[in-house]
C-alpha cells in the first residue's frame, strides 16, 4: 500500500481524501455559522460546545489542521512536479478551448484560500487559542457581554467593510476551487464512471451554496452590527 501512495495516482487519491474531509468540514462550518443569523443563542451554544469539547479540540482539530497542511503541501508538490514534466512551453497554447479556467488555475485559487486561512486564523483561531490555551479561560464568556461571547465577536469582526470584502473575494475563489475540485476528487477516487453528470451537478450546487452562504453571513453581520 505504501507503494501506492508513492505513485502519481496514489498522490491524487491522497489529495482527494484530504479534499473530501475538507469539503465535509466546510459543510459543517457553514451549518454552524448560519446559526449566527438564524439563532444567536443556539450559535453561542454550539460554538461553546465545539470550542470546549475534548473530542473536537484534541482529536478532530489536529486532524483538520493535518488535512489542511497536507492538502496545501501536496498541492504545491504536485504543481511543482507537473511543471517539471514540460520543460519547454508552447509558443501558443489555447487552454480555454478544451478546459475550464478553474481546472487550469487550482494552484492560484488554492493560494488565495491559503491567504484567506491566514487572515481567518489571525481573526478567529489565534485569539481563540490564546484565550483558551495561554490565558486558560475556557468559560466562553467575556466582560461586558451577557452569556457567551462568540456571536458578539463574530458580529464585531464583520463591522469592517474591508474584511467583509476580503472574505467575499476569497469565498468567490473558494467557489471556483470547489467548482473543479468537487468532481475532480471523485474522479481521482475512480468514482465518476456512469454518474459524472450527477456528480457535476452536485459539485456545481456545492460550489455555489458554500461560498454564497459564507458571503451572506459576512454581509448580514456587517449590515446588522
Amino acid at each position: 500500500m505504501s507503494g501506492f501512495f508513492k505513485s502519481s495516482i496514489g498522490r491524487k487519491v491522497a489529495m482527494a481524501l484530504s479534499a473530501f474531509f475538507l469539503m465535509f468540514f466546510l459543510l459543517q462550518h457553514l451549518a454552524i455559522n448560519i446559526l449566527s443569523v438564524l439563532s444567536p443563542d443556539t450559535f453561542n451554544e454550539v460554538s461553546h460546545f465545539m470550542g470546549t469539547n475534548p473530542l473536537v479540540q484534541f482529536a478532530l482539530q489536529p486532524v483538520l489542521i493535518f488535512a489542511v497542511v497536507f492538502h496545501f503541501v501536496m498541492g504545491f508538490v504536485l504543481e511543482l512536479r507537473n511543471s517539471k514534466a514540460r520543460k519547454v512551453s508552447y509558443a501558443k497554447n489555447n487552454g480555454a478551448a478544451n478546459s475550464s479556467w478553474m481546472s487550469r488555475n487550482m494552484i492560484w485559487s488554492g493560494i488565495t484560500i491559503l491567504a484567506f486561512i491566514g487572515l481567518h486564523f489571525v481573526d478567529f483561531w489565534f485569539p481563540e487559542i490564546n484565550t483558551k490555551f495561554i490565558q486558560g479561560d475556557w468559560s466562553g464568556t467575556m466582560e461586558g457581554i451577557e452569556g457567551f461571547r462568540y456571536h458578539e465577536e463574530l458580529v464585531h469582526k464583520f463591522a469592517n467593510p474591508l474584511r467583509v470584502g476580503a472574505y467575499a473575494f476569497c469565498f468567490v475563489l473558494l467557489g471556483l476551487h470547489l467548482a473543479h475540485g468537487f468532481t475532480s476528487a471523485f474522479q481521482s477516487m475512480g468514482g465518476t464512471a456512469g454518474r459524472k453528470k450527477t456528480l457535476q451537478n452536485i459539485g456545481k450546487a456545492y460550489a455555489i451554496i458554500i461560498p454564497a452562504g459564507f458571503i451572506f453571513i459576512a454581509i448580514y453581520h456587517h449590515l446588522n452590527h
Partner: protein
Amino acid sequence: MNLTLKIWRQVDAKDKGKMVDYKVTEISGSMSFLEMMDVLNEQLVNAGEQPVAFDHDCREGICGMCSMYINGEAHGPDRGVTTCQLHMRMFKDGDTITIEPWRAGAFPVVKDLVVDRSAFDRIQHAGGYISVNTSGNTQDANAIPISKQAADTAMDAATCIGCGACVATCKNSSAMLFVGAKVSQYALLPQGQVEAADRVRNMVAQMDLEGFGNCTNTGACEVECPKGISLDNIARMNRELMKASI
C-alpha cells in the same frame, strides 16, 4: 488561400530550436493539413532549403503518427480528428498558423515537429498485453460470453491510437488518458483479468518513470483526443490500481 506559417524548426535533439515564419500561397480548403505541409516542403526543397520534418504514415486517422500542435491545440481546432484529417477549410485566407511539436519532457523533440514517443511503447511493454501462448489449441473467442456493454466499452478504449495528443494538450503533460485506455481495454474483458493487478501496477510505474505529469482532471485530453477516449478510463485505471494495491 494564402497563409503565414510559424513553424518550430530544430535541427536535432541537441539544437535549441526556434520559430520560423513561412508563406504558402494558393492553398485549397479541400487539402488536408499535411497536404498543405507537403506544399510548403516542396517549396522549401525547390528553394534548396531543408524541408520541415513531421511524422505521418496512414494519413487516414488510424496510425497515430501525425502529431502537430496547431494554433495552441493538439491536432488543431477541429474535434475528433488527427492532424492528417484536419482540413484547411478550418482556416481563413490571410491566417497565421502556429505549428509546434508535442511538448513534454517524456516526448523529446527529435527534429522539427518530430518527437520521440517511445515512452508510450515502454508503457505498453510493461503490461499492455495479455499472455496468450500460441500453442495451437487456443480456444474459440466466443467460448467466453462477454456482455455487449463490456465489449463496446472495451472497444471504445481500444480505439486509442497512441498519438500522444492527450499528453501534448494536458497542462501537466500527463499520460493518464493513454494509460487509462490501455488498462481499460483489458480490465473490461475476462481475458484481461488474469494479469489485471500486475498490468495496472507495472504500467502506472512505467508511466511515472517516464516523467509524465500527474492528472489534475482538467478534461483537456478528452476534448482533444481524436478518438474521443473518455475520462471514465482514467477513473477505471484509478480504481484498478487501488484494487491491485489493497
